[in-house]
C-alpha cells in the first residue's frame, strides 16, 4: 500500500534519478570489487605482475582509487534507494555525492585524463535533483524531511512590531 502511494506521488524524474543512482552505485561497487580482487591477488602472490611497472611500492593510487569507487558506490546506492522512497536526506546525500564526483571528474579532465561518463551522469543527475517537481515531491513526502531541503524565501513575512 505504502509503495503504491509512493509510486503515485513520485514524479517520473525522481524514479529515473533513483534508478540511475542505483545503477551508478552498482557499477562503482563492481569496479571497487574488481580493484580489490586485483590488489588482493597481487598481495597474496596469486597474480604475478611486472615489478618494473610497480616502480613505487608506496604508491597508494590504486588503493585510493579502489576506496573512492567503493565509497561512491555505497553513497550512490543508498541515496538512490532513499530517493525512490522520497527521503530528504537522500536528496542531500545524492547532491553531495554528485558534487564530489563531478569535482574529481573535472580535475581529471584538467589533468588530461577525462572521464566523460561521470561528467555526463553528473550533469543529468544534478539536473534531475534540481527539478522543482522532484523537490516538491520530497518536501511533500513528510514534515520530518522538509528541513533538509532549502525552501524559497517567504514573500511577505509578518511584521514584528508591537504597537
Amino acid at each position, binding site marked *: 500500500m505504502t509503495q503504491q502511494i509512493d509510486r503515485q506521488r513520485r514524479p517520473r524524474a525522481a524514479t529515473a534519478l533513483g534508478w540511475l543512482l542505483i545503477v551508478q552505485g552498482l557499477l562503482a561497487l563492481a569496479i571497487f570489487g574488481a580493484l580489490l580482487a586485483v590488489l588482493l591477488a597481487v598481495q597474496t602472490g596469486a597474480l604475478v605482475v611486472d615489478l618494473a611497472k610497480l616502480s613505487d611500492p608506496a604508491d597508494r593510487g590504486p588503493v585510493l582509487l579502489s576506496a573512492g569507487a567503493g565509497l561512491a558506490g555505497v553513497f550512490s546506492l543508498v541515496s538512490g534507494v532513499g530517493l525512490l522512497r522520497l527521503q530528504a536526506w537522500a536528496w542531500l546525500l545524492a547532491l553531495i555525492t554528485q558534487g564530489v564526483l563531478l569535482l574529481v571528474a573535472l580535475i581529471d579532465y584538467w589533468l588530461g585524463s*577525462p572521464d566523460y561518463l561521470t561528467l555526463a551522469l*553528473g*550533469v543529468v543527475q544534478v539536473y534531475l535533483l*534540481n527539478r522543482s517537481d522532484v*523537490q516538491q515531491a520530497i518536501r511533500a513526502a513528510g514534515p520530518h524531511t522538509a528541513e533538509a531541503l*532549502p525552501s*524559497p524565501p517567504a514573500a511577505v513575512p509578518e*511584521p*514584528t512590531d508591537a504597537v
Partner: protein
Amino acid sequence: MSPLTDADLALVRRFEPVLAFTHGEQFYPMDVERYIAAAALCVRRPDGAVTVLVPRGELTVERLIEPRTVAPGSILYLHFVKPFGAAQALAFRSSSSLHTFRPGRGRLARVGLISRLGDMLFFAASVVRGRTPGGAAAAAAVRYQAEQAHDEHYCYYARVVRQHGYLAIQYWFFYAFNDWRSSFDGVNDHEADWELVTVYLDDGPEGPPRPVWLAYSSHEFRGDDLRRRWDDPDLRRVGEHPVVFVSAGAHANYFFAGDYLPSVPLPYADRLLPIWQQAQRIWQRLLGQPAAEPARSVGLLAIPFVEYARGDGLRVGSEQAKEWRARFLQATPGHPEPPWLDSFRGCWGLVTGDPLAGEDGPARPKYHRDGTLLDYWYNPVGWCGLDAVPPPHRERDALEERLAQIRHAVAEQSAQVERQVWARMALERELLVLRGLPDMAWRAARVAADLRAMNKSLAAQKLQLAASEQAIRPLERAVAWPGGLSPGDPRAHLRSPQLPFTPAEVRLSALAEGWSAVSVSVVLLGTVVLSLLNLRWQIGLLAMFGIYTFVEALFHRRVARLVQALVTALALVAAAVLAYTFARPLAVALLLGLGVLVVVDNLRKLRR
C-alpha cells in the same frame, strides 16, 4: 493651485499622521522659516566656485525669493551650519542620545561579503566624490536643538489635491539635516530633508470623503509597494491617524517598526536586468528548476544598507507627547501660499558637487535639483501606482466603461467575422465552379490557397470573438452585484514590500557579528599575502573564498542551499566541457535525429 476650504482643513487635521521616531534621532519636522533664518544663501558655479550671496543670520524669506541672475549651470542653495571640528563633534556625540543608541546584534552579519565590500568601496568613494563635511551633523543638531529649546514645536506642511477621483492629503515633513551616514552607518548625509506621507480619500459625490489608501515616501522608491490599503489589518493607527515609523537619520517612512535593509542599486545595474530575467525564465521554464520570485533588481549589483525605524523614540501627533503645528503649501482662508514654494528654485541644503547627488541638499517639495517638477507634486496619485486603481465610488463606472469597450469590440469583431464567413462562402462557390473547368485549374489552385489562408484567419478571429464574449458575463455580474465588488485581499497589490527583519533573521550569534566585522579585512589581507607569496596563489585565493562562503552559510543556516548552488555550478561547468568536447558528434546526432524524424513522418503520411 486652488485655496483650501475649511472642509479641507478639517480633513487635514482629522487624518494627520502620528510619527514614531527611533531612539537616537536628532532632527524632527520643523518649519522652514526657522531654518532659513539660520542659513546662508550661496551659489555654486559650474567650475565649483562658491559665492555667499546672503550671509548666515541675515537671510529672510523675502531675501530668499528676491529675483537673482546667476550664471547658466549655477546652483543656488542654502547652507545651514558651519561644521564642527572633530573634538566638538565627538563631544556632542557622547552627550547626545546617539551615545545610547544600539545598532543591535547582526547589523553587519545580515549582509554578505559583496555587500560589505560594496559598502567599503562606497565609503571610500565618498571621500573623493564630494561629501557633507564631518562635524556638519553635530553642528546642525546643536543648532536645531537650540532652536527647539527656545521655542519647541513640530510641524508639517499639508497640501490637498483632487486627482482621478481621489482626494490626496499630502503631509510634507521638513528636517534640518539627514545624518544617516554619520550617525547610523547609512548611505549619505545632507543638509535639509523633505519627506512625504499621503492619505488618499475616496472623493465621491455622495457622503463625506473616506480614507481608502496610504502611501509613505521611502528614499527614491516608487510604485505599488509604497502604499497600503486603509483596511489592511497590519496597519497601525491611533484613531484615524496612521502611525508612521520614521527611520533614524534618513527619515524614510515605514508602515512597521523594526530594522530594515533597503538596497541602493548601483548605477546602470538596471540595464542588466532584462538579461538576468531571461536567464531566470530559461532556468525555470525550460529546465524546470525551482521558481524564485521574479527578479526586480540584479541582487549582486545593489548595496543593501541597514536602516532603523524602531518607533522607540519620540512620537509626534494625536494623543502623543508632542502635538503637530499645521502649516500649508496652499493658500488657506486668510493666508496666502508660502512665497518660497514657487519662487525658490534652489536646493535647501549644501551642494557638495557629489556626482551621485546623494550628499546634496534636496530641492523638494516641488522640484528636482535640475528645476523640473517632482512626480510627488504633479502626480500625487500616480507615484505609488494608485492611478491604476479606481476609487471605490468609481469602481462601477470603471467596470461599466470596460464592459462597454468589450461590447463594442465584440460587435465589431462579430460583424468582421460575418463578412469573412460570407466572403469564404463566395470563394467556396467559385472553387466549386472552377474545379469543373480543366483550363482554369491555375485559377482554382489560387482560390484554394486563398481559402486556406482565409480559414486560418477566420478561426483566429472566431477564437478572439469567443474570448471577448466570455469576458462579458462575469463583468455583467460584477456590475449588477448590489454591494459592489469585494475589495479582496488588502495586500494583493504588494510585490516586494519593504518589511522589517524577522526574528529568525536577527537571531545571529555574537560570533557571527564578530566574524562579519573582521571578514572583509581578512579576505583583503589574505589576498595581498597570497599575491606576495606567489605560491599557487590562485588555488589559495579560491580556498580562502571557499572557506569564507562556507562560514557565512553556516552562520546564516544556508549550508544546504550553498551545497546545491556549488554542485549546480559544477554541473554547469561539466555541461560546458561536454558540449565543447562533443560539439561535432552532438551536432551530427542532432541532424541525424531530425533526419530520421522527417523520414518517419513522411512514411506515415504515405501509408495514409
